[in-house]
């Protein structure tokens, strides 16, 4: 029995690498949120008229709301397939702390959605006529904000994954919790475009990230145990 003691970091890296590998093999799940993000953002210039002043005013909100919706659409992939094929039972029954395993899954989810959304956001910013000197702040807010979206989202998915049609319920549960991130993220970009100081918003986004980083894996684990009962 002595060979069986592995530490939690091994469990984290195993799950993280497993989920990254799975994401690479399910290309559509990887590409869909990105395609959704690009399409929604590019609908606005078409609908609003090509008046670049108008676009400029709505650009931060458009980018942030689109990123938020794209993340929300991808959330189910954190636990859905594991729930359906029975892997989740095995993970819950593993002797490793469940929050560590859940954290590995969330981290992989962020790398395959939030991080990619962040990386393509400057290109979309340009398409909304954002000045190039403000693209940096857009990157920063998304870099601080999207992990929080994945973390909070994981709690909602853990609660609804056992339901056959959890999609709408998930949106109703999660979107209100996303409001603070949206407010600070979008307003930071907006204020930077008006040449105002944005350190406060960035600190608040970082604080929200720290808070969800420490609490969400535990909450999601507890929710998973209830879901699997």
């Amino acid at each position: 029995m002595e060979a069986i003691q592995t530490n939690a970091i091994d469990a984290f890296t195993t799950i993280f690498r497993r989920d990254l590998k799975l994401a690479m093999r399910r290309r559509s799940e990887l590409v869909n949120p990105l395609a959704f993000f690009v399409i929604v953002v590019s609908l606005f210039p078409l609908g609003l008229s090509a008046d670049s002043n108008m676009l400029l005013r709505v650009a931060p909100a458009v980018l942030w709301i689109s990123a938020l919706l794209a993340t929300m659409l991808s959330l189910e992939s954190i636990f859905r397939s594991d729930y359906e094929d029975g892997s989740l039972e095995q993970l819950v029954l593993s002797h490793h702390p469940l929050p560590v395993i859940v954290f590995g899954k969330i981290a992989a989810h962020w790398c395959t959605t939030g991080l990619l959304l962040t990386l393509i956001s400057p290109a979309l910013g340009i398409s909304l006529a954002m000045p190039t000197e403000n693209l940096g702040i857009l990157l920063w807010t998304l870099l601080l904000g999207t992990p929080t979206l994945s973390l909070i989202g994981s709690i909602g998915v853990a609660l609804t994954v056992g339901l056959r049609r959890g999609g709408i319920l998930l949106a109703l549960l999660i979107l209100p919790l996303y409001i603070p991130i949206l407010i600070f993220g979008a307003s930071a970009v907006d204020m930077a475009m008006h040449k105002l100081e944005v350190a406060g918003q960035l600190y608040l986004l970082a604080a929200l990230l720290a808070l969800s980083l420490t609490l969400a894996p535990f909450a999601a684990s507890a929710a998973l145990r209830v879901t699997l009962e």
Partner: protein
Amino acid sequence: MAAQPETRVESPRLVVDAVKGARGDRVLFEDLSFALHDGQLLHITGPNGSGKTTLLRVLCGLLAPLEGVVRWRGQDIRSSVSRHRLESTYVGHRDGLKAELTAFENLQIVARLCGCPDGEGIDDSLRLLGLWEQQDIMVGHLSAGQRRRLALGRLILKPALLWILDEPFTAIDVAGREIIEAQLIRHLEDDGIVVLTSHQALVHSKLRDHCVTVSLQ
């Protein structure tokens, strides 16, 4: 563990004490008690919907019993979780395999999570399960019986004392069944404990020697 005198302590390893289980609002079994010693096999029988899977989920700790306790080494499995988790392996009704990973990669993850060193353990189990040639095939392309065999590979990889198996022989052919029964016998002879549900009677006479039956209505 300090050296203990060889007096076989006759306290049973797994005790189920007045357990009540339900699915939704429907009570499936009530006041169910039994005890299992090392080297025993428990065959849970009963018609569809009689609560066999529910009982297994209670035994592995996924589901809390409505009443009563399940004790492993004398301790409630809901309060002292880690020991029971470390020493038991559950193969459920669903295989717990990822369709987008190969047979080898699936076992590799099982091995890493239970802390077994990589390499030969996986190769051995693939050979034993008759899946050596299929090791680089995506699990999604394997047949149901082959997936079932692979799912049972976690029994071989993880050195656990208690095996909890939900319909292990589903979709498995005669040769596969023989392989699995041989593993069960070996495990029981090593003083392991097996709890399983199966609609088919156990074929091997050695298994029947170790077997206790609980029937659910």
